[in-house]
């Protein structure tokens, strides 16, 4: 975490500094400082309406900062050209199922090349390569010719992720990527994110499932009422008092022999 008043930390690929974001007239994110380094996996956790989605959209440049700002590779995001920023940062959200159901998976993923191609350039060798790689990496190459409307929710979400990977971003932002997924698809999704991360991409994901966040992320950031309540190693954040207060539950960690991470149990507090 950077302290207010210092210069942008160049080791961060993307960084929010004193970032406040408003939705309509209501301020949803308050003076958030948070950065992700190349190859780092950060999980953003927090109760409903904590401002997680708003923060992620602001990091992607979709929502303007009310104060503070976002730095991408040491340069303010608002100084970036729109296409260059979209080539550097990919945003993957939960598929809303209202998109074109007749679009094939391959065409869906190829639209991820838009920031590289613009409105007019045809699909080139680089583009085909990136699309093919994204399909293979997400394990949906055999679905390439299928139409989105015929896919399961999990397959559709993987197609959305593949679109993000086809952008060949240096920062991958995900808003609840596992929302509709069964446990098998969840494991697959986070394994794919680990592969992406291993290539040096900075990955930040909003994760609802605290157990999953603990197992996957190197660093967990807890957002509560639009502010960063706590940030650090998964065990410290999820097992800490701030998380219990934010979620209004009692959280207990149980060490299980043979398991790298503690198992968490949650109880309502009266």
């Amino acid at each position, binding site marked *: 975490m950077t302290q207010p008043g210092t210069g942008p930390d160049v080791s961060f690929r993307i960084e929010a500094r004193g970032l406040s974001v408003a939705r309509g007239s209501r301020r949803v994110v308050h003076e958030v400082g948070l950065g992700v380094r190349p190859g780092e996996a950060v999980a953003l956790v927090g109760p409903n309406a904590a401002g997680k989605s708003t923060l992620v959209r602001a990091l992607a*440049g979709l929502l303007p900062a009310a104060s503070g700002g976002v730095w991408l590779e040491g340069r303010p995001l608002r100084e970036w050209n729109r296409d260059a920023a979209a080539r550097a940062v990919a945003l993957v959200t939960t598929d809303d199922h209202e998109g074109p159901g*007749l679009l094939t998976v391959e065409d869906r993923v190829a639209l991820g090349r838009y920031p590289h191609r613009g409105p007019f350039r045809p699909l080139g060798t680089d583009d085909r390569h990136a699309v093919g790689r994204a399909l293979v990496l997400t394990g949906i190459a055999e679905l390439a010719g299928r139409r989105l409307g015929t896919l399961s929710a999990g397959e559709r979400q993987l197609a959305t992720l593949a679109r993000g990977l086809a952008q060949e971003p240096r920062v991958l932002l995900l808003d609840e990527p596992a929302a509709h997924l069964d446990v098998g698809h969840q494991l697959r999704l986070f394994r794919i994110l680990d592969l992406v991360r291993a290539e040096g991409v900075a990955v930040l994901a909003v994760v609802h499932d605290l157990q999953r966040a603990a197992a996957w992320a190197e660093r967990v950031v807890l957002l509560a009422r639009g502010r960063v309540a706590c940030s650090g190693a998964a065990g410290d954040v999820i097992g800490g008092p701030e998380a219990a207060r934010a979620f209004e539950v009692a959280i207990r960690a149980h060490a299980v022999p043979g398991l790298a991470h503690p198992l968490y149990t949650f109880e309502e507090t009266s």
Partner: protein
Amino acid sequence: MTDPTRRWRTFAALALLLPAAGMAAAALGSVSLPAVSILASLSGAAGLPLAGLPGLGEAGEAIFWVVRLPRVILAAIVGGGLAVVGASLQSVFRNPMADAGLLGVGPGAALGAVLSVRLGWSADLFLALPLAAFAGALGAALLVYALSHAGGRPSLHGLLLTGLAVSALAGAGTSVLLVATEEFRVKTVLFWLAGGLEGRSWPHVRLALAFIGAGVAALVLFSRPLDVLSLGEDEAAALGLPVHPARLGILALAALVAGTATAVAGSVPFVGLVAPHALRPLVGPLGRHLLPAAFLGGAVLVVLADLAARTVSPHLDLPLGSLTAFVGAPYFLVALRLHEGRT
């Protein structure tokens, strides 16, 4: 069948269907013209006279070149343009039920056209009518867009109801103008409400070709941003597309095409809904495939509808707009039911 195979077969079928429909529309009517003579006349005009084929004769030549051919071409351009507009609006609004008529663009264009007739502008200036129709179409589209987005992203119902309300408003304005119009102009005004191609000739074809052609070409050229918009606002913005300027630009082009179509043919409802809806499963939803296919499909639909309008009754020409509505409204109701059943 794979998607590319199905796509190319569809395009081939449409490419055969359009000249066939055009030939039927040129040959049939109160006076039938033999198809071979039409071919001879066409190839003669193209500088390749075909020997041995019977000619149309002087009266036949006049009927073909002055009455039938401009009408057929105009029907094709209007139908094609309206179908491309429908397909584009369906992508922008992420809604397969969106259409120029349902979103108020058609009624808005009719109001503009009627207003220019009422004020007598159209008598003085040939371009006044299409410009007024364009302004009406654009105004209605912007009104629906602004009203339906005022409370966040609109639902299917919110969008359709807003379009309905704006259409009703434009229709009410048209009715008031109709009552206030001198009797000798009422027939001209009624023409825009019913839709039709009676008495249209080459100047109308040139006008439609220029404005609808330009609008359709621009929409096809910018079909990739259209595809990106169909993924939703967040994803489009995250892919670097300036969402609001792109949407407004597409709406303006849609209004240009629908406005010009209304200016030359009156209101021809449901073409923009039926043609893309029927073709999307065959050629896929990408704009570079769907828009050209929709143009051909819409052209075939309106050429055939106009042929039916002229020939179904031996005593009077039926309004073209009523014919497309007779076919389109039941289609719309069935499609709506299937759409609601799926979600």
